[in-house]
């Protein structure tokens, strides 16, 4: 058996392209320092598009590669495209912002590309050790990016906190992998499934391993009680990084979570479901309630991001139910997509208002936006409504689909908690809208083309894609996981 087949190449090609491109970008940056503020983002865009091209080429493929360590299936393709979309939007957000904030260094984009490659690997990984490595690959650049606004102490602090807690959490993940390995003798999904099918000597170790893996991934997606880093890091990190992190880390984390739980842990769903359930409920409640108390928009969005993790987790809770299994994936993916647009859009607005020294981020700084910058305010309002789940926005469709899988799984109580959570969330999202439209003020706003474009594009997409959500959801529904 050859160790590296064309099939393997085909499966890994997007990541290879991406990593190679990142390396090239590094070289370009090193030797072409002065042009990097413009050149690097341009090259990054190209690289992402090239990667997207190779991902698109994979559509329809459903293969295992590298002896089962890697799987390309509809699910991974969906997530990868979503991640690339996130990358593209991040570039749109970063271009002006980095220059404005004196952060325009080429390494930024390279690190971002590396991180995306880690995320994509995470979506395709089909072996726990690869998951672990992918997690580190996506995290380490993020740690650095969070601290990118050095020597701003807030940024450094964000990086430090993220790093410390991230390392702490990945310790748990690794230990969980070890336990799973101990229980089954392997870390490859296909072999784990096979040995579970044969019967385990000590299934409890598998359960505990799964629990610890949940800790590690829960940290990445910011699930309570592993969420504590989120607000501080979101607030301290450069906003473009925050935006990137908010979607990328979450999407990758959920990709791994979904794949791991749906592929290898269905048999122990009975034990895991209560854990997931309580984590979800805690996430929903804490995320939303804490968001109410915020006066800083970045922090508010951080908590909102926690709450959205809770919503997606709602779908995951039902993973053990046969009836709901397919909808779990589809609705979680769709929700991520809906979240992506609203999230990037809202960060774009935040960045348009952000001033140096972390000013311009309080709620009060948004007063009067509806009068002075109508388009921006309307866009922000649309994102807030999408977050709340009010039609006609993508966020509503996301919630609607999501709640079906919850109900199909039979979790009526959870559904009600989720509904209440979205009700609470309306309170703080609306607060921002109130401030923007109903209070008077003279907000300081940067008029930057790419930011405006990202914001308005996301806003239009949030509404229009809702109307035409059938193909999108259909696509998400076809993004099935390859099972063993």
């Amino acid at each position, binding site marked *: 058996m050859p160790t590296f087949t064309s099939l393997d190449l085909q499966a890994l090609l997007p990541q290879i392209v991406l990593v190679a491109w990142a390396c090239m970008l590094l070289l370009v940056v090193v030797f072409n320092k002065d042009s990097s503020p413009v050149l690097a983002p341009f090259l990054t865009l190209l690289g992402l598009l090239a990667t997207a091209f190779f991902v698109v080429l994979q559509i329809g493929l459903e293969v295992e590669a590298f002896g089962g360590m890697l799987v390309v299936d509809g699910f991974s393709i969906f997530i990868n495209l979503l991640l690339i979309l996130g990358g593209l939007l991040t570039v749109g957000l970063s271009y002006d912002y980095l220059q404005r904030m004196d952060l325009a*260094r080429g390494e930024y984009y390279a690190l971002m590309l590396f991180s995306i490659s880690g995320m994509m690997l995470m979506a395709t990984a089909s072996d726990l050790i690869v998951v672990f*490595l992918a997690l580190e690959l996506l995290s*380490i650049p993020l740690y650095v990016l969070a601290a990118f606004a050095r020597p701003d102490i807030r940024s450094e602090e964000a990086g430090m906190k993220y790093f410390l807690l991230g390392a702490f959490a990945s310790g748990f993940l690794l230990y969980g992998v070890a336990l799973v390995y101990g229980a089954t003798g392997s870390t490859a999904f296909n072999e784990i499934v096979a040995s579970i099918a044969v019967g385990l000597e000590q299934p409890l170790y598998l359960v505990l391993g799964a629990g610890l893996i949940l800790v590690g991934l829960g940290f990445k997606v910011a699930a309570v009680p592993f969420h504590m880093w989120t607000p501080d890091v979101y607030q301290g990190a450069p906003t473009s990084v925050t935006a990137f992190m908010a979607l990328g880390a979450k999407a990758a984390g959920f990709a791994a979570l979904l794949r791991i739980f749906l592929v290898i842990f269905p048999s122990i769903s009975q034990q895991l479901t209560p854990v997931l359930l309580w984590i979800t409920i805690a996430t929903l409640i804490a995320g939303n309630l804490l968001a109410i108390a915020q006066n800083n928009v970045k922090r508010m969005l951080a908590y909102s991001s926690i709450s959205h993790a809770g919503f997606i987790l709602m779908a995951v809770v039902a993973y053990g139910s046969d009836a709901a299994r397919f909808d779990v994936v589809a609705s979680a993916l769709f929700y991520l997509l809906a979240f992506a647009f609203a999230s990037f859009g809202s960060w774009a607005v935040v960045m348009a208002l952000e001033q140096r020294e972390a000013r311009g981020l309080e709620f009060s700084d948004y007063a009067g936006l509806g009068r002075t910058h109508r388009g921006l305010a309307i866009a922000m309002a649309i994102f807030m409504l999408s977050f709340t789940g009010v039609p006609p926005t993508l966020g509503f469709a996301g919630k609607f689909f999501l709640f079906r899988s919850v109900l199909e799984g039979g979790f009526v109580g959870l559904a009600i908690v989720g509904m209440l959570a979205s009700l609470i969330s309306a309170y703080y999202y609306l607060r921002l809208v109130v401030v923007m439209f109903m209070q008077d003020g003279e907000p300081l706003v940067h008029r930057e083309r790419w930011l405006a474009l990202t914001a308005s594009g996301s806003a239009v997409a949030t509404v229009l894609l809702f109307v035409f959500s059938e193909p999108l959801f259909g696509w998400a529904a076809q993004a099935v996981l390859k099972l063993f």
Partner: protein
Amino acid sequence: MTVDLILFFGLAAVAVSAAIAMLLSRNAVYSALFLILNFATVAVFFLLLGAPFIAMAQVTVYAGAIMVLFLFVIMLLGAEQVQERQKGGWQRPIAILLALVLIIETGYLIFGRGALSAVIEPAASNYASPQAIGETLFTDFLLPFEVTSVLLLVAMVGVIVLTKEERKKAD
């Protein structure tokens, strides 16, 4: 009690004491040294478990490279001692309590609910030779291996980004 067991308990005692000592040391340098001791002990365990290659890697990479880096930074920053105001905070007692609970849980797991039947015998000679490891590494585990290389590259870039003097100041 067999020799194996005596050896195990002896080494385990060393490892645990080293870890505890690391925790309790005032001076970061001492902590680092205790950690090295701990790592070395674990390396011995690796040997016992028939993993000579890993044991060597442990000693060279961990105890050697990584810990030296630690010590270097400690010295560089002059950060041997952080003034740990010993105050009756909640953090510490709760942490210790939780740690105890975790250990009890694990104990209950291991000795109460799910003892593993496997017993470790002295290793066969050809098990896990560096040669075998190398071969596996570059065939079956090609992908993670490559990923690791990227990871190290990224870490390198990250370190440069983080420690490079700001251009602005240089200008």
